[in-house]
């Protein structure tokens, strides 16, 4: 188990949980970021936001956001 921000580009992971307030969590769930969903990190540079693929969707996440997402 680790935060999404630690995952290197090209790796596939499974979302476990999101450590955020209720509102934000619900918003992310609406976007499809629900527990169990498969994510692939497309690009992860050392600083700033990065891109994940979730099925055909490309999501841009801020670094702060990526810290809050626990994956395995």
């Amino acid at each position, binding site marked *: 188990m680790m935060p999404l921000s630690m995952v290197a580009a090209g790796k596939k992971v499974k979302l476990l949980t999101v450590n955020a307030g*209720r509102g934000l969590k619900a918003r992310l769930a609406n976007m499809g970021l629900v527990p169990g969903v498969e994510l692939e990190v497309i690009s992860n540079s050392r600083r700033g936001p990065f891109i994940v693929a979730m099925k055909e969707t*490309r999501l841009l996440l801020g670094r702060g956001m990526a810290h809050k997402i626990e994956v395995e």
Partner: protein
Amino acid sequence: MITRKITVALAGNPNSGKTTVFNNLTGARQHVGNYPGVTVEKKAGLCKHGAFEINVVDLPGTYSLTAYSVEEMVARDFIIKDKPDIVVDIIDASNLERNLYLAVQFMELGVPLILVFNMSDLARSRGIEFDLKKLSELLGSPIVPMVAQKNRGTPALLDTIVAMADGKIHFKPVRINYGREIEKELDHLEQLLGDKKYHHHKYHPRWLALKLLEDDRQIKELVNAPEILEAVNRSAMHLEKIFGDHPEIIISDKRYGFISGACQETVRSTVQARYTSSDLVDAVVTNRLLGFPIFLGLMYLVFQLTFTLGEAPMHWIERFFSWLSGQISFLWPAATTSPLKSLLVDGIIGGVGGVIVFLPNILLLFLAIALLEDSGYMARAAFIMDRLMHKIGLHGKSFIPMLIGFGCSVPAVMATRMLENKRDRLTTMLIIPLMSCGARLPIYALIIPAFFPRVWHGPMLWIIYLIGIVLAVLAARVLRSTLFKGLSAPFVMELPPYRVPTLKGILIHMWERGWLYLKKAGTVILGISIVLWAMTSYPRKEVYDTDYDTMMTRAEDNYYSAVIKLNSRLGLPPEATLIKQALQAEMTTARKQARFYSRDREYREAERFKDSIVVGLENTPEGGILSEFLEVRDMVTRARNTFDNAVNEGRLKPDAPAYLLLKSNLNITLAEIEYKQPQIYRGVVTYMDSAWIPYEKTVKEINRQKQGEALTASVAGRIGHFLEPVLRPMGFDWRIGTALIGAFAAKEVFVAQMGIVFSVGDDEDGPEALRDKLRKNYTPLVAFCIMLFMLISMPCLATLAVVRRESNSWKWALFQLGGLTLLAFLITMLVYQAGRFLGIG
């Protein structure tokens, strides 16, 4: 045949091609963007098919129907309250599962639904195959495949709409099973809500129950019954205990689960292409090292393009308006004081024409913005900017409204809706006017070429824009650390795939913005031009403080005494007055004729009278010299005029080859005249240089002084003068003050107003004449200060109004107005005083 009227709502995710479908259906011209959130307004259009008149309503693009964003609430309110007969959900077939999430929520609302699988060609090329028949059965809605960009599938969609409205296709909404636990709570709440007391006839009880469990604040406010909310809380707690998560998360999960299940059975992906070409482009464009330079380079290119390519068409428009005002002037005798002529030529053509001249710039700027938007780059720009935006406490998404702000503040303020956090939203809204909008471009386009060398044109414009950006950054920082303290919302955004923009889309976009600009010129600016013209023309000065008549007489006396001095050069006796008499007759006649049309009897009579005097003089013993003098004078004047006109027309600079050619032609013509009549020629040249030209100059000077005095006395002049003590420290005079009044209504009016204040437009035309006047009256330092002040100070009336609407209070709108104007005053004053101290300007 009786036509039936039905309403169809178009819904879909941003970037699903919804707007293109809308255009295909209705033929309406609307912007097709690639960035989430471009379509924020509800748009409607009519189309006919069979016996049906279909009213198509374009809903904002949304990902779901929650109460998190304005767009989603707009969309769901429309469905619930306006009850469209059919909802058509446009689905990007190449990103199916994500897009079906919205469709599922429409099914839960129980509206008749048609699914359009758009971009089915793209999906197929990515190796995705659908079993549409089975999927349609599973989802309980008809599915129409479509390629909207190529306008394929529109007739099939219309057929399906009509068939459904006729009851030939039955819509059987599927009910998602949320699992035993949740269903139990839903049933319980549904029963409670079914009670008459809580009956909300427009809403489906199951949907209400679902939304309440999802903690939807809008629905909670709607229900507003303590017993029910209590029951919802109990249910939520119960579910949380079982699932270890909030009910809304579980509900989303179940929805995605349902979609995934349906897709597993019906969608087959033959190719496992994880990295698309979009990802490859992103690897370069969003690269940590390359991303920012690429972005800055693109922005610089946009400005260069706007400025250099626009030059030639601007010149054409300019020439058209000078021709037009010439044609209109001919309708009146030359010396008319008709207010109507002044209104038409100085007020309307001067004002509106001065603004329309910049249409090419505006079109090019919007062309560039449309390219960035439709290609999908705009979303990446937000990503690249997030690092930077984060430092000033803003959201990367804030960057999009700010970028649109370079076009116009009004849509930019509206685009702040895409920001969910209120603090982010207000901060962005307040600093948007610092993004130099398109309406301010005419001001820079007027001033920069007037004061700065050609190589500096592009960079100078860039510097001005950069100052705006830097100030916006600082202002945002200050706002975020004082008024809007708190963390900004974390950054999450969908990236639309890159697309090659369609020519049609770009052209529609460009034309729409251009048309808006023209409409503004035809309505608001026309009105303002008339008001400002009246403000600068009235009250009219009846009695002047300076005795201009005496000044005129004195100038005339000087002119005639210079003429008498010519006698010796022409070989006439020193006291001979025949040349003076002939010129006097010419001048009297010209003055008289100016009051009449050339077709009037008086006009011709004056001509005949003058001719008789001249003929009489020519018949005196020295008359031969007079006729030769007049003849040579006319030839020289003609030659010189030809040269001047050609130079003005081609805007030739003295070092241009064409200029040199014209100059040598002029010299040859003059040499020929001199060769034939050397003595007379030299006399004429002396006459021109020492009598006629100085006289003309003095007359112009006197008229200008008179005009200035009249303007000082006018309403605008008085306001300008009243403001002058405040404007002085910034290096501005009352004329700039007068123009600033107009600029408040719309920024670009500043240019028109300066034109009127300097009364350009009678004999000299276009920005060149105004630039000349500006150069004579102001230093480059003042010119820079004007641009600076226009950049920072008060937003225009339209922006004020839209900020008031979007922030829902006058407080923020007025705060912005006052704050920015004060900031502009302080900065401009600082720059001007520092510049003066350093001896610049």
